[in-house]
């Protein structure tokens, strides 16, 4: 029982977007207060100083190169992790023996701390693409878990239709099973995208590729430029939220619509 009544009604108390604006105002007020209390801009810079620094950084080529490269690596890693996760889930869902053998590998991957993967991978791969590989490795078990749960819950009716009409494996997969699990996969993708960003940027901080937001954060830390760290963090938050919003928008439009035209 909800002690505070209907949650939906409570959420609708503010017009759309007002809650977000209030949150931003509150966060800025707390940030400003803490910055004034600490009175050390190299530890906690004021919001207005960060805004000025953001504008200074945004007019440099290096800033956009870092954003572009990080975005590319995270997206490549995320896409590879999702595709590999679903591809691993398909045979595991179809054949219990395959699942029994390979499921522990995926479970182990899920429990290993990301920093272990990063340090190990640093020995093996080039720093330029390390964060993409780390993002993929972090997304893979999430995608696998989401896909296998979705495949396990596929309606028996769909399987029977495929069986009665003797649909081939590819037709079953692309016409029935994948569209049927697409809404659940998109929800998984939203979680995976957040993970890809966190792990990818962490990998950049440790691997220090030539261009990357993680490298920017590391160099700012070495130079005690707290304002730069805040700028990079804010850029990461904005891009991550924008991509998550786009994915959620896709998810809200499912079931998808295939026309025969």
């Amino acid at each position, binding site marked *: 029982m909800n002690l505070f009544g209907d949650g939906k009604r409570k959420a609708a108390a503010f017009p759309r977007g007002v809650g977000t604006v209030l949150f931003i105002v509150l966060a800025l007020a707390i940030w400003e207060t803490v910055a004034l209390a600490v009175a050390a801009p190299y530890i906690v810079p004021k919001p207005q100083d960060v805004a000025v620094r953001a504008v200074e950084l945004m007019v440099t080529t290096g800033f956009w190169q870092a954003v572009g490269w990080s975005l590319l690596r995270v997206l490549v890693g995320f896409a590879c992790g999702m595709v590999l996760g679903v591809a691993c889930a398909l045979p595991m869902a179809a054949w219990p023996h395959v699942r029994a053998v390979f499921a522990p590998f995926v479970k182990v991957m899920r429990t290993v701390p990301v920093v272990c993967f990063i340090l190990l991978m640093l020995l093996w791969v080039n720093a330029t693409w390390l964060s993409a590989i780390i993002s993929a490795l972090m997304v893979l078990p999430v995608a696998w878990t989401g896909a296998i749960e979705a495949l396990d819950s596929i309606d028996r009716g769909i399987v029977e239709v495929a069986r*009665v*009409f003797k649909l081939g494996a590819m*037709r079953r997969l692309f016409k029935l099973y994948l569209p049927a699990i697409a809404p659940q996969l998109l929800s998984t993708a939203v979680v995976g995208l957040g993970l890809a960003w966190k792990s990818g940027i962490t990998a950049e901080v440790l691997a220090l590729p030539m261009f990357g937001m993680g490298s920017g954060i590391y160099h700012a830390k070495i130079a005690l430029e707290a304002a730069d760290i805040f700028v990079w963090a804010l850029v990461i938050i904005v891009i991550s939220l924008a991509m998550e919003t786009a994915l959620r928008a896709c998810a809200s439009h499912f079931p998808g619509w295939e026309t*025969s035209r």
Partner: protein
Amino acid sequence: MKLAGLKKSFDGTCVLDGINADLPEHGLVGVAGVSGAGKSTLLRILAGLEQPDAGRVEGCPERVSVQFEDDRLFPWMDVLANVTLVGCDDAVAVELLESLGLAGKLHARVEELSGGQRRRAALARAFAFPAQVALLDEPTARLDEESASLVLDVVQRRCYDMLVVAATHDKQVIDRCSIVLQI
């Protein structure tokens, strides 16, 4: 096709108790009985979706088509794509849908269809699949009298070259059957 002593129980409740019948190669065969008598279960056994506890189906062809009681149309495809899913040409699917009064709904979403239109789209899919036997579970359910008559005309035309087995309560269907299995 011969049904020999088919028996089926679910959780100790006997649903089919020794069904015997000889079915012709073509024609319309009705399976009649009260709700819960096992009509759908019999169709599921004929489709190979359920195994009988005892007895057997002899001479069952490899390709058997089904119109499921709950339609099982997919919301991520339009009506035409739902029918061509079974591997037929667009032209065949269009002709079937037109003959069932769905000419204007070829590219409609499944959720835009009424219950009766869904029923007819599911029937079109069943007939679009090249099979020697079609199993129809309540083919006239949710149809008005005019639509039911249209559907039965199409069913009867198909009966010249295939066996159609229809589980039904509808007297209109029973009247058109050459054989009725009362279970």
